[in-house]
């Protein structure tokens, strides 16, 4: 498998803040790779360094084996879809999309032909002459996508491209992005803070936290065996029990986490490896399930799932199995 992008020992400092701390990353050709993390974790900085908008203070960037650390963006064969689309306001949809073709001196008729084709692919046929300010958010997104894809880049960088769209549209675009990626067979590097999005779309995910990559793995591994309590907490919902509480109440010497879906409410005398009880402080209807938030006598909050609601302050016994807990060092 050829490497599309490789980052070696990348560090970036902004105004005395360490945005990236010695980051190493290898992304294979054709992969859908997500950079996941909370805001300020360094994922967007990482993307900008790959695109060339920012230069790393230390380290090297490779694109298909070539070192490009000091190569300006217009000489890199990657294209970017920006968070707020960055469409040129003084150009029509067609001019926006054909911008890179015009730069490469491609003939007018060929330009029109290619713009027409790509507009068909992003389902905006006939929009060539529209002004960009007449478009809805989703349409702007498609134009931005078309503008980046028309170059047939080997690597497409996407900076939270669906962040400004509403839920339904976002879910629809997630599917379309996946389809496009397969159709064009190019590497997608996808920045997002939405763990659901990263889990559902990616081949692999790199989880960022405070300028470090905490784990690079497949979505299933990230979810099922997170390497740190930060990841367990950030990806999906979970209950993280710190070391002190674990050793005082659960006969474990290390911090651990247990996901709500693995906790059962005890009704009969069924045997669980761990038992616990707490009083309900919040009961939220979530559609398919109720999310119950409990507080135990030793002041630990638990989130558990239930098919029925519970009264506030009512006492619930719950338990879980040894095999479902994730232990952290």
């Amino acid at each position, binding site marked *: 498998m050829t490497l599309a992008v490789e980052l070696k020992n990348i560090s970036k400092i902004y105004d005395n803040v360490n945005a990236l701390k010695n980051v190493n990353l290898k992304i294979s050709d054709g992969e859908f790779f997500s950079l996941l993390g909370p805001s300020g974790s360094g994922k967007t900085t990482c993307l900008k360094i790959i695109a060339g*908008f920012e230069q790393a203070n230390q380290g090297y960037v490779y694109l298909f084996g070539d070192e490009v650390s000091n190569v300006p963006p217009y000489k890199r064969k990657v294209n970017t879809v920006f968070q*707020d689309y960055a469409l040129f306001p003084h150009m029509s949809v067609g001019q926006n999309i054909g*911008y890179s073709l015009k730069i490469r001196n491609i003939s007018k008729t060929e330009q029109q032909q290619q713009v027409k084709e790509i507009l068909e692919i992003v389902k905006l046929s006939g929009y060539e002459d529209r002004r960009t300010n007449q478009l809805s958010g989703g349409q702007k997104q498609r134009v931005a996508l078309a503008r980046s894809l028309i170059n047939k880049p080997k690597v497409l960088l996407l900076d939270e491209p669906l962040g400004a769209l509403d839920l339904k549209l976002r879910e629809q675009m997630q599917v379309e992005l996946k389809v496009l990626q397969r159709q064009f067979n190019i590497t997608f590097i996808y920045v997002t803070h939405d763990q659901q999005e990263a889990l559902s779309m990616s081949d692999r995910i790199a989880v960022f936290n405070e300028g470090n990559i905490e784990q690079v793995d497949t979505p299933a591994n990230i979810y099922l065996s997170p390497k740190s309590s930060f990841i367990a907490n950030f990806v999906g919902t979970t209950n993280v029990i710190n070391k002190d509480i674990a050793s005082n109440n659960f006969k474990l010497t290390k911090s651990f986490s247990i996901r709500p879906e693995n906790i059962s409410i005890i009704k009969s005398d069924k045997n669980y490896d761990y038992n616990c009880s707490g009083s309900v402080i919040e009961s939220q209807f979530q559609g398919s399930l109720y999310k119950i938030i409990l507080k135990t006598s030793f002041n630990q909050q638990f989130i558990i799932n239930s098919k029925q609601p519970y009264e506030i302050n009512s006492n619930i016994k719950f338990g879980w199995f040894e095999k479902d807990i994730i232990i952290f060092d």
Partner: protein
Amino acid sequence: MNTITLKKNFFSLISDYAYKNKTFLFITFITPPLAWLGIVYLGSLLILLMHSFFYLDGFTGQIVYKFSFQTLIELFTQRANIDIIIRTIGMASSVTIGSAIIGFPVAYYMAKFTGKKTKAIFYIAVMLPLWSSYLVRVYSWKLILAKEGIINWTFEKLHFSWFLDLVLSLPIIGGPSLSISYIGMFLVFTFIWLPFMIIPIQAALERVPNNLLDASSDLGATPNYTFYKIILPLAMPGIAAGSIFTFSLTLGDYIIPYIIGTSKFFIGQAVYTHQGVAGNIPLAAAFSIVPIIVMGIYIFIAKRLGAFDAL
């Protein structure tokens, strides 16, 4: 239970009415300034312009209040008057182009590369000249440009006097010294009006999101291409606004041509002399139509070329 006691006096009733009826509120606030602008300013301007349709009786020197194109025909047919118009428009155009070329890099640096503090310093530096009297600035330029002034002195000390002499020996724009030449006048005009060019361009560039520049580069555009295709078109409303300032201010000015430069008249001076000493208000009025027409044409062309598309 607490109840909110509503005041029911006269003012609160008016305020409630204005809150509900926005047109009433709008009219109340917009009428005084509109009346000032519309009646006092535009009205008197129109009356002045109407005078250009009257004419001066050649024998008595009295204004004849009869509708006639005589004055306007005189304006556009007499060689001396045409020269004044061409001279003024030529100077205004060069000053506008000069200020745009000098002002753009400053504005660009201010908009894209300065932090809060440096930007404040730049603002002050650009605006500071406007804090001193216009006359003081022009007279100090007279001293700077004079034969005994610092520019001449510097050239002399550097043994480059020959270069200055060469420039001043150019036909039309040259002269005996910088302070008595069109070159000197151009320098002073450009300096005096530069803030009016820099600030609008800076404001326009400030509104260009940086990610547009990133996007352009990302799509393969060299910095040069990005400048001509993205930055310049988006800065155009600012350049247009700035050039309207510098162009119209130069068209109407009579102090700089009077203090700096030759004895040849500019439109401002012509208006000043005709309505004052000569008492030829119709011709003065006719002259003052010229900048209005020129600006009208200028803005029309600018709009046609799409200068305001990015507004």
